[in-house]
């Protein structure tokens, strides 16, 4: 087991390095850098001015060297101007020569500086991630119990009217992406056209002060899309368990139907959905990006859109590291959890 986890962590590290390198490569292509220089400097810069702006800041070096700098394994750039002033990646203008550090990368704990938000990337990502954590927490709190209840109710009597209506409901939710359900919810529950106005169409205030009024729609929008898939998996697992021999035995011994479902079937039926729920979390990330944009909730997904839309390289790299780590850790937890829940499987 220890070796298994170690190997998985190794693969995780390799994946993270490959992915960040791809992001690094794509964001450092010359047209992207040109756009960056023009937005940071001046929109009417000439080509030479752009080249010197980029050259002074180490952007024109080899991609591998630049990537090494970001990681913290290559020395940061320093440029000496004609008038003798020295600027560098790892120190401010006023820092005395002997206190200047050579390396400043992720390994040294320095995630860089966001050019769009004018702030340290590390703290920026941390605060936004906390906001999204709150949203995700509420989503899971709504989604998981709902999905399990729907799945178990549908799966306990295969082919019944209840099964058919609940299955159609879960298919309908998987067919409704967040930007469709969100739009419909806002139009019905928050617009003046229908006149209901029960909720608010914007969740900007929910970061400090989440209320039922401003937080319900975003949570429900994400939860609904993720719910259908988990419910269908739970239903499939439940119907399989309900046809097992030991359920028939219990039935013949005269155990009531409610007892069979609650005491005999449920525990075995919930093993498979656990894996699905864990693997669903990275998918929720997509929903989070859409919903945070739609409802203007300034969390991690909103940050991703801002960083990607403005080619904020260091912020974008930090965002992709976080999302890759989320994906890989949930995969790891689902594998390990599956082994613990299901005594029939052993990893040798």
């Amino acid at each position, binding site marked *: 087991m220890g070796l298994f986890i170690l190997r998985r962590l190794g693969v995780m590290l390799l994946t993270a390095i490959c992915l960040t390198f791809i992001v690094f490569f794509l964001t450092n292509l010359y047209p992207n850098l040109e756009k960056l220089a023009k937005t940071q400097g001046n929109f009417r810069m000439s080509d030479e001015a752009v080249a010197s702006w980029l050259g002074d800041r180490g952007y024109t070096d080899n991609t591998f060297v630049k990537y090494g700098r970001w990681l913290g394994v290559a020395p940061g750039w320093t440029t000496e101007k004609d008038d003798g002033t020295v600027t560098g990646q790892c120190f401010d203008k006023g820092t005395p020569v002997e206190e200047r550090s050579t390396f400043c990368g992720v390994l040294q704990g320095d995630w860089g500086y966001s050019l769009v938000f004018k702030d340290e990337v590390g703290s920026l990502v941390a605060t936004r991630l906390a906001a999204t954590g709150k949203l995700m927490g509420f989503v899971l709190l709504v989604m998981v119990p709902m999905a399990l209840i729907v799945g178990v109710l549908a799966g306990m009597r295969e082919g019944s009217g209840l099964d058919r209506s609940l299955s159609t409901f879960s298919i309908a939710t998987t067919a409704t992406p967040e930007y469709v359900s969100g739009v*419909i919810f806002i139009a019905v529950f928050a617009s003046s056209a229908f006149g209901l106005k029960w909720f608010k169409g914007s969740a900007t205030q929910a970061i400090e002060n989440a209320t039922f009024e401003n937080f319900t729609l975003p949570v429900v929008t994400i939860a609904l899309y993720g719910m259908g898939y988990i419910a269908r998996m739970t239903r499939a697992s439940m119907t399989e368990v309900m046809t097992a021999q030991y359920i028939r035995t219990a039935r013949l011994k005269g155990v009531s139907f409610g007892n069979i479902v609650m005491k005999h079937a449920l525990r075995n039926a919930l093993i498979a959905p656990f894996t699905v729920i864990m693997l669903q979390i990275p998918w929720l990330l997509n929903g989070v990006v859409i919903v945070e944009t739609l409802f203007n909730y300034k969390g991690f997904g909103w940050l991703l859109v801002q960083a990607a839309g403005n080619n904020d390289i260091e912020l974008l790299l930090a965002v992709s590291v976080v999302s890759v780590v989320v994906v890989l850790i949930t995969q790891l937890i689902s594998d390990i959890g599956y082994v613990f829940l299901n005594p029939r499987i052993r990893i040798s």
Partner: protein
Amino acid sequence: MEPLTWTGTLGQFLDPVLYVLVALFLVVVLAQIVLSIATGGARVVTNPDGTLSTAGGPYDLAATATRWTGAALLALLVIYVLAGAVGGAGLGGIIGGMSQQLIPVWIALVVTFVVSIQFKRRLGLYGKLFDSTVGMIGFALVMFWVFAGVMAGLFDWISTHDSLTQVSGMKNKVPGTPLRGAEDGQYAWYLLGGDNLARDVFSRLFKGAWVVVQIAPLATLFAFMVGITLGLPAGYYGGRLDTILSFLANLILAFPVILLFYLLVTPEIVATGIPNYMATVLFIFPLIFVAVLLNSRYYTQPSFRTPLLIAVLGVLGWIYLSLISTNGAIVSTATYAIPGLPGAVDLFDIDPGILVVFVSVVFVNAPTVFRIVRGLALDIKTRDYVAAAQTRGEGPWYIMLWEILPNARGPLIVDFCLRIGYTTILLGTLGFFGLGLESESPDWGTTINAGRRLLSVYPHVAIAPALALLTLVLGLNLLADGLREESLKD
């Protein structure tokens, strides 16, 4: 001209009936669900002759009531559509006007269904679809949008106005607003209202359907070609090849889709020519697939195989080259250009915006298909008929493409339907973030994106494409469900 109501004069008589029926239907369905939990569903009794039948009782009563009210509701909706198709907007209001515009679609749908049901026993899996209600509903929804998209896009039949023309005074007008000073031959209303640039929402909706109907199935097909061509050897050979390919697939899958889109689908990336390189690589897979498929089948008959391969690959190669080359170059950036097919023999040019959207959607979908195919190949390669083929001395590619692949078709067809739906969602996501397609493009994602800014005041602009996307994807999901059910039966 009077503004239209939703159901027109017809509605004055039929609307109260509709409300009563809907209320009744909801009550009965709710009663059925509650009763099925409370009483344990239908009570089955054994008759003296050994047959089973359901005994009466409250649940049975509720089930019958559901069926009848459901049928009545459906009949009423058909009346709305039929009367609207005959009487038009004057009789049936907005619904009637739309129904009249959609007459070619109704005819095509009815013909498809009548012919299919007539010959369903001779049509294999497609025919079996018509045994399942869910499958039929899904198929009808999908075909509605396919017919509507094709007719609006190719023949310009359904739309009432030009999808880009702005008419003064129609900005953000609610559905059914009459056109100010409509001339002869001009459709007199904006059936689904006007958007914030005073364009007709109804016409844009169906023009948008054409964009989706063009891109989604084709992109899914390409993703399947890539996934199958790489997934079969990965599953069949295993070993190092499998490890490397699986790692690459997981790498792409670990990317948040939206981040990938933001990195790939920007004008700056298009300027570097990266989408063209990706297109060059991704579009060659169908060629490899067909070449290997035919070669492994007719390998023993060289006199037949060689001319066949030359002919097929010649045509496909031509299409491939015209697909990837634009203005005589495969990749053309500011600093260099790789020459491709010259313009004279170039069959068609693809808009760079559409190409980058297409490539990135294929790129995102292919790894998932790869994983499914690999899993199926791993499972099927242990079967006896594969062992038999190996003993016969068949080559590995023959076994993969002519033994394993046909036996994996059931799950693959089902996944194909689901994946077209997912691709539609992805296209919508791209439009929603304003990536790829131009901002005036009528596709649904872009329209939703444009409409969401004024959502709390004029929801009709965004709601129409949202419901369209919902029904198409729902139809594809139901179709996949019906196909899965029917393919499991044998």
